[in-house]
């Protein structure tokens, strides 16, 4: 059974600061996804990465996928209060039944104005 770990568990920073959160898997990712979940809402997909070493940028967010496809990082530049939320990494787990998504426990980010 694949296990995903995320660190740090909690992060509180001031507006304008930079930050990096991490996701590690006990096995090679099939298709790594990053989500952001705001309080009272469902997770919203930010990015999907599949190729080892891949770097994707989404405005102030930079996603890196490790060469061995077992780890990933999300870097936010000049954080804003609107970035506050739970950041989840997930893998698409294909098995004999079809598929499901395996989620990490998340990093809860709070950006203070």
């Amino acid at each position, binding site marked *: 059974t694949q296990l995903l770990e995320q660190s740090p568990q909690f992060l509180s920073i001031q507006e304008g600061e930079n930050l990096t959160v991490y996701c590690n898997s006990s096995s090679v990712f099939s298709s790594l996804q990053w989500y952001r979940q705001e309080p009272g809402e469902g997770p919203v997909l930010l990015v999907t990465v599949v190729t080892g070493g891949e770097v994707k940028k989404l405005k102030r967010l930079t996603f890196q996928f490790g060469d061995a496809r077992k780890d990933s990082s999300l870097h936010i530049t000049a954080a804003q209060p609107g970035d506050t939320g739970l950041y989840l990494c997930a893998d698409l787990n294909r098995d004999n039944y079809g598929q*499901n*998504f395996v*989620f990490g426990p998340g990093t809860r980010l709070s950006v203070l104005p």
Partner: protein
Amino acid sequence: GAGVSQSPRYKVAKRGQDVALRCDPISGHVSLFWYQQALGQGPEFLTYFQNEAQLDKSGLPSDRFFAERPEGSVSTLKIQRTQQEDSAVYLCASSLGQGRSAFFGQGTRLTVV
């Protein structure tokens, strides 16, 4: 519809009561997932449908949990004889098919008192 819709948004049930949670997926999405998210945790997989077929129910925690999708669109998650440990947010997600990105609803927050 434009997105995945879940109802009710909030449900308070007395211990021992049966509840039914509804999910309206995005029109045309063949894959549908149910997840359970405890407070401060990432979503945990419950069950997966492809059209009307329930291909994987390995995540359902007990035989008190039952899900159906009789016509391959709307799905209902039923919990019989609710217990306090069932208190959580229940998330529904849908996707166009195997390997495609999943879109989540806002969830139903179930509180068992």
